[in-house]
């Protein structure tokens, strides 16, 4: 069955920062949602439904935030749905919203992801003790560091590739007014000399804890045609998941990741992702995940993703596939929003609205999120042209 054409009509973000002490969660999501509506030139009453995502409830201690936030999101008398796929939730949320338009259920849908990390402790929430296993309270970094080491060993990557990614993303962040980290005086040496947090991950190679929200307004073809400004057309959407531990699992390059990428590129009619995609926003919470995902997604051959980093191919200045021009998760991480930021930034690029971090002439962009133990994947391809 053919899907209805779907477009991103508007994007709204808050300035990501460590604490938004001036607003409640309701005020935070409202701010992003309103900006997305203004960008789309639409009103609350134009929205047919709201799809909201955030990290697991333990991250903030709010059960069912979707109920508490319905008023703030203009959802009176409309459906509100919550999506829940750990760190990838921002991406999955956007895709569930898109599916409501693609399926012809709704004409215009507001979708939003948010997090107030200042009111919580993500590492605590990620490290809940289990009665029958050792609790090491290591959070996400402790979980991913052995996987990263495995990648380093099997690919033969030089030790400082991760530092190159971290330095690049922090440089990119200086060109994005919404980014949390604006480290104007940061040097590459400082990145390298930062203390090891979870060997081989340095403190400088990890994401910050941020408060923030990101929203998008999605619409059907008629809504896309009626938009006053440029829209981003959805060319492909895919989600996959797998268990995080089973015999033979490739934790560096999960099958679900490869399948998801293959599916989204097939839908978009893309056979050579590196040459056909102009800019990518990928979920890179720890620096080494950039080369790892470049390979898994198909932008690079196996064990060769680090070469793209080394050659500067993923840099906004001079790279042929700029990655995370917004500064990425390494520069802003309101967890429940982080995936949606990737999707929204991809849309901004093909709309030509990415400001100082715009990739000149970007026509097709890739948005990516992953979550859990690298077991949930959400991806989309958006383009300036109608598919």
């Amino acid at each position, binding site marked *: 069955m053919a899907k209805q054409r779907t477009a991103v009509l508007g994007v709204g973000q808050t300035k990501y920062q460590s604490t938004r002490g*001036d607003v*409640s969660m309701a*005020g935070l999501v*409202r701010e992003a949602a309103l900006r997305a509506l203004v960008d789309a030139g639409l009103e609350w009453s134009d929205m047919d439904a709201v799809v909201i995502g955030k990290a697991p409830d333990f991250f*903030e201690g709010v059960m069912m935030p979707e109920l508490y936030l319905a008023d*703030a999101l203009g959802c009176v008398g409309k459906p509100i749905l919550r999506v829940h796929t750990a760190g990838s939730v921002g991406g999955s949320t956007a895709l569930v919203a898109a599916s409501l338009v693609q399926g012809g259920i709704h004409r215009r849908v507001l979708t939003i992801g948010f997090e107030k990390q200042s009111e*919580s402790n993500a590492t605590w929430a990620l490290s809940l*003790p289990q009665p*029958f296993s050792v609790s090491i309270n290591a959070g996400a970094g402790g979980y991913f560091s052995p996987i990263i080491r495995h990648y380093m060993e099997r690919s033969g990557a030089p030790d400082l590739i991760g530092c190159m990614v971290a330095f690049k993303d922090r440089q990119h962040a200086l060109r994005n007014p919404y980014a949390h980290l604006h480290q104007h005086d940061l040097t590459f040496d400082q990145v390298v000399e930062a203390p090891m947090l979870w060997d081989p991950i340095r403190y400088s190679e990890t994401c910050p804890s941020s408060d923030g929200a990101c929203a998008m307004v999605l619409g059907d073809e008629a809504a896309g045609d009626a938009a006053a400004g440029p829209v981003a057309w959805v060319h492909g959407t895919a989600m996959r998941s797998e268990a995080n531990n089973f015999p033979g699992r490739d934790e560096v390059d999960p099958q679900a990741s490869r399948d998801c990428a293959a599916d989204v590129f097939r839908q978009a009619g893309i056979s050579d992702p590196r040459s056909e995609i102009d800019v990518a926003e990928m979920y890179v919470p720890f620096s080494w995940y950039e080369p790892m995902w470049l390979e898994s997604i198909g932008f690079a051959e196996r064990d060769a993703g680090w070469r793209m980093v080394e050659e500067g191919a993923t840099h906004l200045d001079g790279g042929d596939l700029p990655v995370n021009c917004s500064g990425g998760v390494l520069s802003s991480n309101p967890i429940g929003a982080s995936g949606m930021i990737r999707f929204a930034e991809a849309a901004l690029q093909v709309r030509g609205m990415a400001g100082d971090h715009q990739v000149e002439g970007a026509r097709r962009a890739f948005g990516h999120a992953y979550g859990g133990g690298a077991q949930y994947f959400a991806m989309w391809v958006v383009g300036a042209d109608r598919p």
Partner: protein
Amino acid sequence: MGEAPLRADLILEYPFTRTTGPVIGAFLTGLREGVLTGVRRPDGTVMVPPAEYDPVTSEPLTEIVEVGQAGEVVSWTWVDPPRPQSPWDEPHGLALILLDGADTPMLHAVLVDSPDELVTGMRVLAVWSREREGHIADLSGFSPEEVA
């Protein structure tokens, strides 16, 4: 049959914080000062406790208004005995109380000795805690208004 499978206790605790924002924050500040507040909607009605966004139009609500310290019991239930985690040690009423000047009732305790003393439509008056810190517990409960 062997022994029953072992059980393991699992206690998860974390002291979360909440940023209250300008509207809920004003309500809590009022409690600390011994004042009850609500928020006025565009149609003139007043919600107590206040909401940040209109429950019908979703428009932001910003006009904080003081309401009365007394009101009317709209409906009630009797709690006997209170559960161990109840804020109240003694049997008490829980009532929906429509404060003077408010258009939505607020849930709180009515501190009487017997359900015989509770009746829908009765007047009750706020009883404040001695120590107040900007929390709903600053309000100990309500007691029947003195009959003139």
